[in-house]
């Protein structure tokens, strides 16, 4: 068990909701969430499909540990063909929605087709129905969550929805749940919008049955205790992920001004200390930490903006507490665009949640636009009169609003940096892989991260490999392929289980994941099986991408990272050694020289 063994299939074209048993043979092979949803997608769509056509499907998935008391067991995943990338999209989120969906009795919801009118899905345990989104369409995530709760007179409904960004087709629209948690990357919200699906509202009361409750509870107790005493976990709780700002800043791995620099002179205004310190008006950005369902780490930041700050001065609705800056948003809405104004970055982050767009891709796309402006490829004529110079906090806030709504030059920024820079004739200025913008690490100082970006199945991403310890030790590339490959597999398995991968930064070990799974699920789970499952998921995603038309040529990095030496920091003078690492990575994966899983590899993984 662990699994609910039930799928909800929603045909948006026909307006029907039907129950199906979960394919348990696939569950044993691909575990759940990211893995199992990818298996269903691979079996049910042609990977060559246009991501925005009705023939693409959107799978919302929980894992076998979602909804349990395993620490961080509240994760869910949106899997589809990505609107931003054309590759497999697999975006993970926390909050309370995933646990609620699992409690309603479902492992997966598969959305297919396209509704003729905007609708939302309302689930109360077994009862699932499509309802008109009249009065909701055209409104933001922050407006519709309370509206849906009010409509059903139930404050305990949990909601995942899209904002205006997903409606108009911003390429990196996300699906936001619980107001400020998001399945953020690759344009999963864009796909949801293309289906005329505004929201999924769920109320679940069923609980989750476990295979061997005593075994599970014993394992969960040990895993949670290990997190409790871990130094990394304590840091995550007290400082959040934004603690990383000082480290990458000192190291020279903090992408700044579209990766033209790797250290940011304003980093000290965007770090954990600044977040906790009163400003000149005596206002402190951070209120407290926050946690997702069943999480004992609590890395989330709950912030509020100084009411006197220009961004919110006459807007009381933005003066309230909401999800604050994390390391990735502090980079994307800070150093990436040269802005050192914490409240401006926090405000832009609020707008990303409200309109439903990925702050990393928004910041990366705005950074590309700012460099286009710097080199004269665009002028005020294109930007609508906005002076897009580095560090312009007002421009950041304005562009966040315009991009969220799809107005003015915001519509161009909403295309993503790849399409934007191509439009203006300077494609080399897009800091992206497979069309998805970089996360907050530079691939020259962090050679392993560079390899991780290049080989990530969903495009540039910091959540697909875990090369931090190696990268903060050495820029030598010899061990990187192994570190990247093995951690890619482990993370795929963690994602598939329904736990949060931040456990791996906080004292969680493969033994903890395996023993908790073994208690929750039948079939016998140990570390070897966990790793093999992760590897199988990785190869399945790779097969999806190959079938979609991607090739080894897409496993690359922008020219800047491959050819322009890092200007400062530990890697001063270095470029990415991707060309050395990639062949070794393919070899270790059991892939051909052109990056295709060999027949022997597929057979070993039971995928042939």
């Amino acid at each position: 068990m662990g699994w609910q063994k039930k799928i909800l299939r929603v045909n948006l074209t026909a307006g029907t909701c039907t129950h199906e048993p979960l394919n348990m043979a696939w569950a044993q092979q691909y575990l759940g969430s990211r893995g199992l949803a990818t298996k269903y997608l691979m079996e049910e769509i042609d990977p060559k499909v246009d991501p925005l056509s009705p023939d693409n499907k959107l799978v919302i998935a929980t894992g076998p540990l979602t909804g349990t008391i395993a620490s961080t067991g509240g994760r869910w995943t949106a899997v589809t063909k990505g609107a931003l990338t054309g590759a497999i999209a697999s975006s993970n989120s926390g909050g309370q929605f995933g646990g609620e969906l699992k409690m309603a009795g479902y492992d997966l919801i598969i959305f297919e087709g396209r509704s003729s009118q905007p609708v939302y899905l309302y689930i109360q345990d077994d009862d699932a129905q499509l309802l008109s989104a009249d009065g909701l369409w055209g409104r933001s995530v922050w407006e519709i969550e309370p509206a849906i709760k009010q409509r059903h007179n139930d404050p305990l409904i949990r909601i995942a929805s899209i904002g205006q960004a997903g409606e108009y087709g911003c390429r990196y629209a996300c699906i936001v749940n619980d107001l400020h948690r998001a399945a953020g990357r690759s344009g999963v919200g864009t796909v949801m919008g293309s289906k005329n699906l505004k929201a999924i509202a769920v109320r679940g009361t069923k609980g989750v049955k476990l295979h061997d409750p005593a075994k599970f509870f014993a394992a969960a107790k040990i895993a949670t205790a290990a997190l409790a005493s871990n130094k990394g976990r304590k840091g995550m709780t007290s400082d959040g992920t934004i603690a990383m700002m000082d480290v990458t800043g000192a190291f020279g791995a903090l992408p700044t001004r579209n990766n033209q620099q790797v250290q940011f002179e304003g980093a000290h205004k965007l770090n954990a200390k600044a977040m906790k310190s009163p400003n000149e008006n005596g206002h402190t950005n951070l209120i407290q930490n926050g946690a997702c369902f069943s999480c004992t780490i609590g890395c989330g930041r709950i912030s509020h903006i100084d009411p006197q700050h220009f961004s919110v001065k006459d807007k009381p609705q933005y003066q309230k507490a909401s999800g604050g800056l994390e390391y990735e948003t502090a980079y994307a809405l800070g150093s990436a665009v040269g802005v050192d104004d914490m409240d401006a970055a926090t405000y832009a982050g609020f707008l990303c949640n409200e309109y439903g767009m990925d702050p990393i891709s928004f910041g990366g796309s705005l950074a590309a636009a700012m460099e286009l402006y710097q080199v004269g490829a665009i002028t005020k004529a294109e930007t609508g009169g906005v002076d897009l110079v580095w560090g312009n906090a007002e421009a950041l806030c304005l562009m966040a609003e315009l991009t969220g709504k799809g107005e003015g030059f915001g519509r161009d920024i909403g295309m993503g940096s790849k399409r934007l820079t191509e439009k203006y004739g300077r494609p080399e200025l897009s800091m992206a892989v497979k069309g998805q913008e970089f996360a907050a690490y530079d691939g020259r100082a962090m050679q392993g991260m560079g390899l991780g970006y290049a080989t990530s199945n969903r495009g540039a991403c910091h959540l697909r490999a875990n090369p931090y310890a190696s990268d903060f030790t050495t820029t030598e590339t010899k061990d990187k392929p192994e570190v990247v490959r093995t951690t890619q597999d482990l993370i795929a398995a963690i994602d598939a289980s329904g736990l949060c991968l931040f456990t791996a930064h906080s004292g969680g070990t493969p033994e903890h994941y395996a023993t908790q799974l073994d208690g929750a699920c039948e079939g016998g789970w140990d570390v070897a099986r966990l790793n093999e499952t992760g590897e199988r998921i990785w190869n399945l995603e790779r097969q999806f991408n190959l079938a979609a038309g991607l090739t080894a040529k897409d496993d690359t990095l922008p020219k800047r990272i491959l050819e322009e030496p890092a200007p400062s920091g530990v890697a001063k003078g270095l470029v990415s050694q991707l060309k050395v690492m990639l062949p070794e990575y393919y070899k270790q994966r059991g892939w051909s020289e052109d990056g295709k899983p060999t027949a022997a590899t597929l057979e070993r993984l039971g995928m042939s």
Partner: protein
Amino acid sequence: MQVNVKLLGWMREFLGDGIAHFDDKDFELAEGHTLGELINTLGFRTETPFMTMQNGDRVVDSVLDTTVIKDGDKIVFVPPLKGG
């Protein structure tokens, strides 16, 4: 000679007994002091590896005892953060 020592992240929680917590502090050291000696003075209590940087360059653990600190150096100690 004077050097500046910075502790990033939760590094200050590793400080040895009797050393007052600080984030950023100037230290007066004798000529010829090595990074290894400075680390002993600070008495970090941790089994987990941490990273040492001198004027923006990483100094690997194997040469800490032979790396001499110079007047005006900026020394940064970084805890083992794993991502975010």
